[in-house]
């Protein structure tokens, strides 16, 4: 009897040992779809144009010219130490509310530095988020799996599978069902947000994950969700959790 149970257990363990890594291997960052020269541009920070946003971010990190007279560095000290792996955990719940990295930066900006919030996609906000995201480069994405955050996860998930727009397409129809196939000349990626903020060559500048999501929404001819809206936040969280364990590559370069 015990022998039989042990044998069954063995089968179960065998299943996990084989099946789980196989599942993990199927996930692929869009970096793998790029040309070697674009990959080099992303990985080598002396070639990556997002470098300039990082330098601007470093200047802002030490900037005290706000009503509170406080720089980011006055509370958080060295960005390389204090912000290590921080970006890999966003979006997360802060005081019961889902917040992404940009939202957290703006919360510091308005409360601690008593200044108006940075506009979404403004150079200052992107510079700070690029600087902070870079401190997680090479570390695994670690979005929360706390039961308290499940409603946000489920909301993001349902949006991901929701058909929208005149083209009547869901995110999943391209990025799950047709990932690896081609849309015009480009390969459809699996939509893992491993490298945001990204320097997109088409944009000729750095943009956030929400900018990317909004372009997708407009491409299926749906009404765009507003920047910082609950919909985009939930989608952002769902995608990050879907990529849990994958390496952060921020700031990425994309064609």
């Amino acid at each position, binding site marked *: 009897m015990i022998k039989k149970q042990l044998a069954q257990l063995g089968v179960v363990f065998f299943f996990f040992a084989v099946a789980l890594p196989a599942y993990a291997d199927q996930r692929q960052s869009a970096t793998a779809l790029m040309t070697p020269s674009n990959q080099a541009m992303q990985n080598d920070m002396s*070639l990556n144009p997002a470098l*300039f946003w990082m330098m601007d971010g470093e200047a802002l990190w030490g900037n005290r010219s706000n009503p509170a007279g406080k720089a980011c560095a006055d509370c958080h000290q060295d960005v390389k130490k204090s912000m290590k792996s921080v970006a890999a955990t966003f979006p997360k719940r802060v005081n019961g509310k889902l917040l992404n990295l940009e939202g957290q930066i703006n919360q510091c900006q308005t409360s601690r530095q008593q200044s108006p919030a940075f506009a979404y996609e403004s150079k200052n906000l992107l510079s700070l988020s690029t600087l902070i995201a870079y401190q997680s480069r090479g570390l695994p994405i670690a979005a929360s799996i706390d039961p308290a955050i499940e409603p946000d996860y489920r909301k993001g998930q349902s949006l991901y599978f929701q058909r929208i727009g005149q083209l009547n397409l869901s995110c999943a129809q391209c990025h799950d069902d047709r990932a690896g196939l081609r849309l015009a000349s480009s390969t459809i990626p699996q939509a893992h947000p491993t490298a945001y903020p990204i320097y997109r060559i088409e944009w*000729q500048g750095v943009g956030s994950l929400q900018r990317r999501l909004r372009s997708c929404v407009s491409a299926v001819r749906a009404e765009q969700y507003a920047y910082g809206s609950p919909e985009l936040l939930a989608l952002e969280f769902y995608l990050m959790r879907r990529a849990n364990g994958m390496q952060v590559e921020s700031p990425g370069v994309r064609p």
Partner: protein
Amino acid sequence: MSRSSRAVVTMPKTAKKGEVFSIRAIVQHDMESGFRHTEQGERVPRDMIRSFVCTYNGNEVFKADLHSGVASNPLFIFYAKAEQSGNFEFKWQGDNNYLTVVNQAITVA
């Protein structure tokens, strides 16, 4: 008064005589082509870097003229041969009094 921006040059600080090494020079610039229009239909004026010159102890080793097809934040990668210790000067010049100069010293053993 000229406008300037950030530029980053990556090259070795020391080299052996006769050694060929690579230089990377990237500069922050939006490179407005002059062909774009705002949503109101107004033309966005051209604002580009027009030339990039690299000199090694006063001798020109690399030069490029830039035109409207060049991407923003242009990056140049080129090679130079170490002859003697001295200075590399990198100079970007462009519209609206744009000027950025970076100097980098090299020791040739």
